[in-house]
């Protein structure tokens, strides 16, 4: 029985994969608990779970706290959409400095000239902006705050960047579902949620300006393009351990609020047992290849080929003692 725990975002995808993988390897039993990235990381650090899932790469401080090397294996991409609720208005183009100032309380109404400047021809009501954010620690907050912090100094200084930042103004709601409900029920609300939730909640989303200066709508394709472009741009300098941020990355089609969704596995898997390690390695390999074909039908972004190649290299490092877990088992 392979056990995993972590982020709620990829949970439906992992469950679908486990069900599909049963046709390939019926003997694997895998149980994934969507308890949140923080709890998942704690469990994999302690060794009480076999792998963790996180929407954010480990910081250096967390790598040190883990005690033993953990492999980052990206399996899909998270897309954070900026959503809002302004009656009578459709999708808008919102510039990062305007977003930052909305959360700082500088831009207070939807008919502010700076919003009208990027949306010519749209009649904006004089509705007060109600910033909405995640009250619990969240990878979405990390992605969103990273984007705004890079583009706006005052945001970086006052609010900060990370899974839990100090917004100071507005309403906090718990979980992606909480933020979605808050935006749905509050006229004038402006917030950030995973694209899946925005779609299912029928929220109006905004187009954002990416690093290339182009307006891009949130989509899985935009995330895949962001990953591919970052890979190309970094080339040789791409970190081997795949701890790279895709936020505000290069690429004309890149959507700025994208991030890898990782699985974290201990590189040295003896503690879990070699048989279990082989089963897990086989599943992860399948997820990187066949699984990617299934992901779009479930509304999840597929990894670009370049990322799959790098992830394969990481997976090959998985070992128990001297045996590489992806190689065929030694004959008795």
């Amino acid at each position, binding site marked *: 029985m392979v056990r995993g725990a972590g982020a709620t975002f990829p949970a439906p995808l992992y469950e679908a994969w486990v069900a599909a993988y049963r046709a390939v390897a019926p003997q694997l039993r895998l149980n994934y608990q969507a308890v949140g990235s*923080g709890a998942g990381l704690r469990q994999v650090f302690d060794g009480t779970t076999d792998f963790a899932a996180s929407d954010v790469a480990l910081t250096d401080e967390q790598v040190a706290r883990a005690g033993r090397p953990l492999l980052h294996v990206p399996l899909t991409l998270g897309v954070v959409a900026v959503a809002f609720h302004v009656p009578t208005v459709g999708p808008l183009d919102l510039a990062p400095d305007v977003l930052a100032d909305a959360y700082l309380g500088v831009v207070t109404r939807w008919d502010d000239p700076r919003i009208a400047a990027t949306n010519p021809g749209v009649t904006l009501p004089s509705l007060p902006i109600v910033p909405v954010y995640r009250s619990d620690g969240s990878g979405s907050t990390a992605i969103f705050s990273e984007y705004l912090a890079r583009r706006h100094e005052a945001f970086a200084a006052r609010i*900060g960047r990370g899974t839990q930042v*100090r917004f100071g103004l507005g309403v906090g709601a718990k979980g992606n579902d909480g933020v979605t409900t808050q935006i749905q029920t509050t006229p004038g609300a402006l917030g950030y949620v995973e694209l899946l939730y925005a779609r299912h909640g029928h929220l109006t989303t905004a187009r954002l300006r990416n690093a290339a200066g182009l307006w891009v709508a949130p989509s899985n394709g935009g995330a895949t393009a962001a990953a591919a472009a970052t890979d190309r741009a970094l080339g040789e300098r791409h970190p081997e351990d795949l701890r790279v941020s895709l936020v505000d990355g290069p690429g004309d089609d890149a959507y700025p609020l994208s991030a890898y969704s990782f699985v974290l596995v201990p590189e040295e898997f003896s503690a879990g047992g070699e048989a279990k390690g082989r089963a897990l390695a086989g599943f992860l390999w399948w997820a990187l290849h066949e699984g990617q074909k299934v992901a779009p039908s479930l509304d999840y972004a597929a990894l670009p080929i370049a990322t799959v190649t790098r992830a394969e290299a990481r997976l090959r490092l998985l070992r128990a003692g001297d045996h590489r877990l992806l190689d065929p088992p030694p004959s008795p």
Partner: protein
Amino acid sequence: MTSRASAPPPFSTIGRRRWAGWLRVGPEVNGGDAFFRFSTASVTVVATGLLVVLGIGLFVSSRGTFGRQGLGFLVGPTWAPVHGVFGALPFAYGTLVTSGLALFLAVPVALGVAIFLAELSPRWMRGPVGLLVELSAAVPSIVYGLWGVAVLVPWLREVAEPALQRGLGWVPVFRGVPVGNGLLAAALILSLMVLPTIAAVSRDVLRAVPTGLKEGALALGATRWEMLRMVALPHARTGLLGAVLLGLGRALGEAMAVTMVIGNNPRIAASLFEPSSTMAAILANQFGEAHGPHLEALAALAFLLFILTVALNVAARLLVGRGWGQPKAEARFLFPRAP
């Protein structure tokens, strides 16, 4: 009496008077009773010991915060984990304001319900209505929270808060843009949640007032109201305070319903319309993902909430002074001087 030759073992309480300190623990008539006493005593020790263990565990987890900041943590006005700054004041403020306002709104209504059900209503009504009141106390908090999000918050935002601003906008607590979520929403939800608890317990307390006392007052010519004011309510005073404390305890600890309507913004809000946070709500939100100094600060908040609840209960008992009316074994220890 047993002879010395076949004296029971030293710890036995069978047939002998024994003391543990000043507490008399014997005699028991037979082994079965002795075992019964032992097992119920052990269970009591475990149950009360859990309380102590909980308190100690919380304190130990929060050592780091108190070591770094000392008592300054209690009055720190800023909570910003991203900058490494932790202070409990915003949550103490939010907790006290929401619970205080909730009690202020709920207690008069609950007392009215209790008096009506215990004294003034037709007898055929007391059973069904009493049951309804008790049932409302059993509704899970998450249901109140969902109702708050779906009904109360929009109503506050569209109807109630603008009306309050129009009429009383000069008062500082009614300023600001009505969002719906905020201290007022949390206080209203809490008052709805504690109302049935206080009402049900108060009604039972009033019913327990000896009929002879009440009839004596009526026989002497008192009106219903005079009987209540001069006989029933004073007699039930301590029990009523206990009912209010039960309600306060529920209000202080309520996390789920509050976090859904209060806006979860850790700051001291001047206006009741503004989002804020309480100790229970912030714990519900941030405990899962916290680690390091952040986790220690949250444990410190939990410890504070624990101490606050315990201290409130103890203070109320001491304030009342007369114990629970009838001398009981525990009252002799709490109030050694005769009442």
